[in-house]
């Protein structure tokens, strides 16, 4: 690995966004930051600000309102960036996949690099998923996943990121 990709891999800053579900996974993301799991060992900082983040951890089943926010936040992250969807809610909607206020699945809104299943995903799984997403930062991963179908509406001009493979590699 090159000098730069080493640094990228060793210093992935994360941001967490909960898009509306039961919080179980969100709390597990928090737990992963605390002494027992200590994500900072990997150089990970929880920045809480898309402009500083390299990896976005998304939990929850993407309600309509949260989807709007989610896409906006993704747009504000500087590349190279990766997205880790955590919990089955964020993957497919999980038990909520039939609910009326959501278009389940993070990959319907933004490209996703790693899927961490589980309900709730254990902190260990979150760590493993985050580590997996580092490949994207190192430039080694293939194109991220986008769910097929129409892009979601309700996103105004100027905020829409074209969902296309490789977008997050920019």
């Amino acid at each position, binding site marked *: 690995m090159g000098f730069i990709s080493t640094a990228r891999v060793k210093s992935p800053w994360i941001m967490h966004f909960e898009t509306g579900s039961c919080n179980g996974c969100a709390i597990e993301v928090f737990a992963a930051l605390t002494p027992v799991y200590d994500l900072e060992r990997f150089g990970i900082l929880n920045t809480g600000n*898309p*402009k500083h983040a390299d990896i976005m951890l998304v939990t929850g089943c993407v309600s309509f*309102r949260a989807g*709007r926010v989610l896409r906006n936040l993704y747009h*504000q992250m500087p590349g190279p960036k990766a997205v880790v969807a955590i919990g089955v809610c964020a993957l497919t909607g999980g038990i909520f996949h039939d609910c009326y206020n959501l278009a389940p699945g993070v990959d319907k809104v933004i490209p996703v690099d790693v899927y961490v299943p589980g309900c709730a995903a254990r902190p260990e799984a979150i760590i493993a998923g985050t580590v997996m997403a580092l490949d994207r930062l190192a430039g080694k991963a293939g194109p991220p996943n986008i769910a097929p179908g129409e892009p979601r509406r309700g996103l105004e001009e100027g*905020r829409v990121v074209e969902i296309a493979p490789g977008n997050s590699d920019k």
Partner: protein
Amino acid sequence: MDAWPIALAILLPVATALLAYIFRIRAARVLAVVVMAAGLMVSALALAGRGSFTYTPESVLGLPIDTLITILDLALLGYLVWIGLSMRRLSVVLLAGLQLAGLGYLEFWLRGSTPAVLPAEPAMVIDRLAVTMNLIISGVGSLVVLFALPYMDEFERRQKAMKTRQPRFFLFLLLFLGAMNGLVFSNNLLWLYFFWEATTFSSFMLITHTGAREALANGLRALWMNLLGGLAFVLALIFLARNAHIVSLRALAGWPLAGWPGWRGLPPIGSSPDLLLLPMGLLCFAAFTKAAQFPFQTWLTGAMVAPTPVSALLHSSTMVKAAVYLIIRLAPAFRGTTLGILVAVIGGFTFMAASTTAIGQANGKRVLAYSTIANLGLIIAMAGINTPQALSAALLIIIFHAISKALLFICVGTIEHGIRTRDIEEMEGLFYKMPMTTIITVVAMTSMMLPPFGVLIGKWLAIEASVRFPLLLPFVVLGSALTVVFWSKWLGRILTVSYHRKFRLEKLPLLISASMLVLAAAVVVASFGIASVFDFLAAPVVRGQFGIAGVVTPRADLATGMGEFIPWPIFLLIVLVLLAIPISFSRVKPADIRPPYLCGENAGEKPGTSFYSARDEINLTRTGNYYVTGVFGEASINRWAYPIAVGLLLLMIGVIKP
């Protein structure tokens, strides 16, 4: 003849004033003012090029000048009494009347058998200090007057004035210039007093220029406060004439000099220097009122209702400087006395209190006013302790403050006309509306608070000078720290550049942009060449008084022996950073510009400024500045500042009791 620059400096503005008043044609006025500005600059340069000299004009049109001045003086005071009567303001009537009486007493009772002119004591002394002041008055003053020409047109358009009052405006503005030049040249205290009152008078006329109720009220406040100082001045004159037979500034300042002739040829009487403390204290008191030191600060902040050129010229760069000028003149006499320390403390206290108050102000001009008061306080403080370094600091601040502050006022005036308000809160994103003005304003503000600009170097010198004066030190330290606060707040606000917008250079009248650019250039050049400025203007004054300069300029910088300030590397750095502008502009592609962080809810046409909130409504974000009015508001400051300031003044009066 030697004296033509002096005559030019005093009479040219007066003549132009009368011309502008009589011939009410705009073109003629513009032409006359431009010619006058050129003339003033020439005369100032001519004077600057010459060494110190003295001059005593004998008579004008066969009338002895002494008499002429007496007559004018009495007329002026009489007019002021009349103003007081017609506006039903008892304080003005009383104060002007008392002065009239005092002056009459001085002129008619105390005058000996025959008025003998004193060949030994010249009426005018032109030394480096006077030259410096003259340069400021004629240089900065002319630029401000030039700026006033287009400004007043716009001003009257805004006011929807039926009939132009510009002739009256320029009459007083230009008369003031003449008076101010006269003031700094005068050595005869009676002359000085006349010019002093003349500036008070024109200040009043200019504050009340619009005739609005607020203007009248504030004008009257300014008038009575200044008249109070004038009364102190007269009392000092009477005391000096009666008890010490001194009527010359130089004599007073140089007292006790053996063999120095007193008033009207009589030897100065009294053997103890303490005797002179009373008149000196009274003169300082007069200076405090004119320099709007706490507790008299309200007249100056109130004077901000006047059109901006007035604020720029009278209420920041020149007229109020007359007060500190007087104190600097007197300083050698009370050096090392308790009076000196008290003067320093009062100045220092004002410096701190005014800087503090400025934090709580949202009105641009009031911020400028408080900053002016603060700087005057610092100058007075420096004059009060009067060491070589302190004097150098005072002089440097006078020079640089005059330029920067005049520039700032001009900028704020232009901004006010551009965006129709002087509220700092409304100046957000100014860069898009008036890029040039904004940049110049930024330069001006930076020059008020940051290195490597002159005012800050002055403050640096002031801190080093006050190290040995523990009573003054806390004020200076706090004041200079607080200065940064209100400037950076304001600066931040006008520098806000919002997301994704194009801008165009604004169109400004030639005279406005010219005066702005010249002053801005002057700020930068003078700060860069601060060593030369110091060597040329300040060092001779200091050396004249102390024999040593106190500050040396070894490497194009200022060194005091305790420390050294090298401005040019900082300039170099700034240039380096400025070079980054084109780079940064070229490297940022439009796609790289993303909306700011609004917790993910950016919305609307301009995603940078609005966000979705409850009901998916689109709301505008805004961020107000912090003024912390509970602590820094005028009311809360005055609660403690007034008692302290009054207490200090009383203390001073207690000290000077003969």
